[in-house]
């Protein structure tokens, strides 16, 4: 029995796995102690659970529990990593490098640092969404102190060459931060071998609850950060604030499940993704955004040319997906990630991001495929532009009359 709208938006957020909720419930009932309360079992039980969860998060990413700091989510982790490192090491240099396709949590944080006197280079990516390592090397300067590149892109699912970037940074003593919010449970992450200094994690992208995340802070070699939240000195002084055991326990369990089930889950989702791609075969003027090889199987970002974006989104209300537009204030802006790939605004607006997950089924994929095929055909039928294209007109040569 299909439940509408069908959820194909796992990159936006994931349902909390029932096993995770089960683990959380005791900490929403009888175990309500403040983990910082040292004077009674209410506090001790909470503290023990927090430390167990820390081990579970560390285990998924090949780190030591001591390297993991709890935060309220990946946005906060990214803010803490970038501002924390930039400010701590500002005497070494004030140049930062990141990519145009990073999440706003990284981009906006960088802009804030620019206002404070840092210089930021926002590198272009190639048409396939991947960073060109040569271009990266060329951008490095003597005063480059921090590099931030996300592991898996939230919009198009491509996997950046984190290992190689890490090697280059470590050679030059540059701190390397990676936003791994979309990566956990989807790609192998081994911080024992990856030369990454700071890594941000989100629980709610990996079937955990919202409101909790973590930041990996390398201890060998030791990375220092300027704390951004001050107070009772929690989390080694790096992030003050009462810890929420129920959320932490949820993240721990979510990451434990991810570690155990990732291989099998990825295989299953890869099959679903193939089915989805196959479903769009034969459709004209349909483009997949982002490299077809260096990507996670969960994500498929597709542009349907000659279809008006908003009409398309309205037409496919039976599936919950994301479009290539973001509502910023009153205007509808095309996705900056798609623009960075070289997509024209029109095409960016007519893009749909399908993201599959743990509970996605073949039935859902088939429904989505049929829905898109039907609606796209219908919308194109009504489109005068489509008529012209069918007749062989090169639209870029047309002189449009102004109204």
């Amino acid at each position, binding site marked *: 029995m299909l439940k509408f709208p069908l959820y194909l938006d796992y990159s936006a957020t994931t*349902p909390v796995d029932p096993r995770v909720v089960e683990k959380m419930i005791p900490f929403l009932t009888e175990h*309500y102690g*403040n983990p910082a309360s040292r004077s009674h079992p209410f506090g001790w039980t909470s503290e023990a659970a927090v430390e167990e969860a820390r081990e579970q998060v560390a285990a998924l990413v090949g780190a030591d529990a001591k390297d993991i700091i709890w935060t309220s*989510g990946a946005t906060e982790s*990214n803010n803490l990593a970038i501002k924390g490192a930039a400010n701590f090491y500002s005497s070494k240099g004030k140049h930062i490098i990141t990519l145009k396709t990073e999440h706003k949590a990284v981009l906006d944080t960088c802009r804030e640092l620019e206002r404070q006197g840092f210089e930021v280079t926002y590198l272009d990516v190639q048409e396939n969404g991947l960073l060109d390592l040569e271009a990266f090397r060329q951008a490095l300067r003597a005063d480059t102190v921090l590099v931030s590149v996300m592991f898996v892109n939230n919009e198009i699912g491509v996997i950046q060459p984190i290992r190689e970037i890490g090697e280059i940074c470590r050679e030059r003593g540059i701190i390397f931060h990676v936003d791994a919010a979309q990566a956990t449970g989807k790609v192998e992450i081994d911080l024992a071998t990856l030369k990454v200094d700071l890594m941000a994690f989100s629980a*709610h992208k990996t079937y955990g609850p919202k409101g909790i995340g973590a930041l990996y802070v390398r201890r060998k070699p030791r990375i220092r950060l300027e704390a951004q*939240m001050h107070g*009772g000195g929690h989390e080694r002084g790096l992030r*003050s604030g009462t810890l929420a055991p129920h959320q932490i326990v949820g993240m721990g369990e979510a990451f434990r499940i991810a570690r155990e089930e990732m291989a099998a889950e990825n295989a299953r989702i890869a099959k679903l993704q193939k089915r989805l791609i196959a479903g769009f075969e034969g459709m004209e003027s349909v483009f997949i955004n982002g490299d077809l090889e260096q990507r996670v199987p969960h994500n498929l970002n597709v542009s349907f040319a000659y279809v008006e974006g908003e009409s398309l989104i309205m037409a496919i209300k039976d599936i919950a997906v994301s479009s290539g537009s973001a509502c910023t204030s009153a205007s509808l802006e095309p996705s900056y990630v798609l623009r960075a790939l070289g997509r024209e605004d029109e095409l960016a607006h007519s893009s749909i991001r399908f993201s599959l997950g743990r509970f996605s089924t073949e039935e859902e994929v088939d429904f989505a495929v049929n829905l898109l095929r039907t609606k796209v055909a219908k919308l194109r039928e009504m489109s005068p532009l489509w008529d012209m294209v069918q007749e062989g007109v090169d639209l870029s040569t047309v002189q449009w009359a102004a109204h």
Partner: protein
Amino acid sequence: MRTPAFLDHNATTPLDASVRAVMLPWLGERFGNPSSHHEYGRAARAAIETAREQVAQGVGAHPTEVIFVSGGSEANNLFIKGAALTRRPGIIGVGATEHPCVREPARQLRGQGWRVHEIAVDAAGLVRQDDYQTLLAQRPALVSVMLANNETGVIQDVAALATQARAADAGFHTDAVQAFGKIAIDFRGLNAAGVHALTLSAHKIGGPLGAGALVADKRIEFLPLVAGGGQERGLRSGTENIAAIVGFGQAAWLRAQALASRAAQQQCLRDRLEAGLGEMGFEVFGHHAPRLPNTSYFAVPGIDGDALVGRLDRAGFAVASGSACSSAGGAPSATLLAMGVAPEIARSAVRVSVGDANTADEIDEFLGAFCRALTELRQLNRAVV
């Protein structure tokens, strides 16, 4: 092992059953990201706005004045650092008995050229007017004085302090984390008197850990501390913790019901405890000042507070020595030192903070256990000497 009686409600509170009930769907089938445009997202968005109204109503504020953050610590950081960022470095006045999550952000500002003036308090824990006037004469840019102290329960006359600060053009903030749900808070009235912002925390009012709010006059300027997707009108980016926010709203709504009768009930228990303590000759900190109805902070001279609390725990009573956030520290309470209490006395401080589920029997049993623990420790002390 019998569950200890929980007498440490100022550290945190049990999650109210009806709060848990409203939260669970948001950890279940209603999992959408509030920023998503589809049905899943829209439902989440609507729930957040309902919670915002509930929290606003709980403190007599307008919903647009409520900014959701991850907790009280973050709200305090947001105002103090965020407001400082929009002003040229100057003086920030901070009460001498503030919680570390107010003191520490203020101290951090020193690195940016700010001067921190710790506002002295009297023996009762109330702000001393002479020192406050000294501060105001120097025209501080910002002032932060908590509405009620987490250790002593002492309530400051924040409206009066804010009015004085307004005459000096200072931005005034109050940490209302401990006051919310125990005494009535009217932000509209406080705002009219000169309070620009106040901090709230969900887990102190029977709500979940992981949610708090900064309630702020929209005319006061401050910059966000967490940048990103632009949530909370750009003042706090990051996917909203919908379950915690919904729980916060429900808890705020619940506490607004029957506030007076609940406070009276708790005060009854607190007074019963203090009557018993009084008979044993113990002094209660701040008892000459207006106090929260549930808090009793007292000294047991000659006895190590941590040791006493440990014995009480083994006897089945969860209380605290000093505040939770620093209970591993070992240092005497900064609040008590600021009140002029001698360090040895401060080290013997014990805090009992009652809640809705506590009973008169528990208080009587506590007094019994307390007496026994005290006797044992005194014998030990004598033996050592």
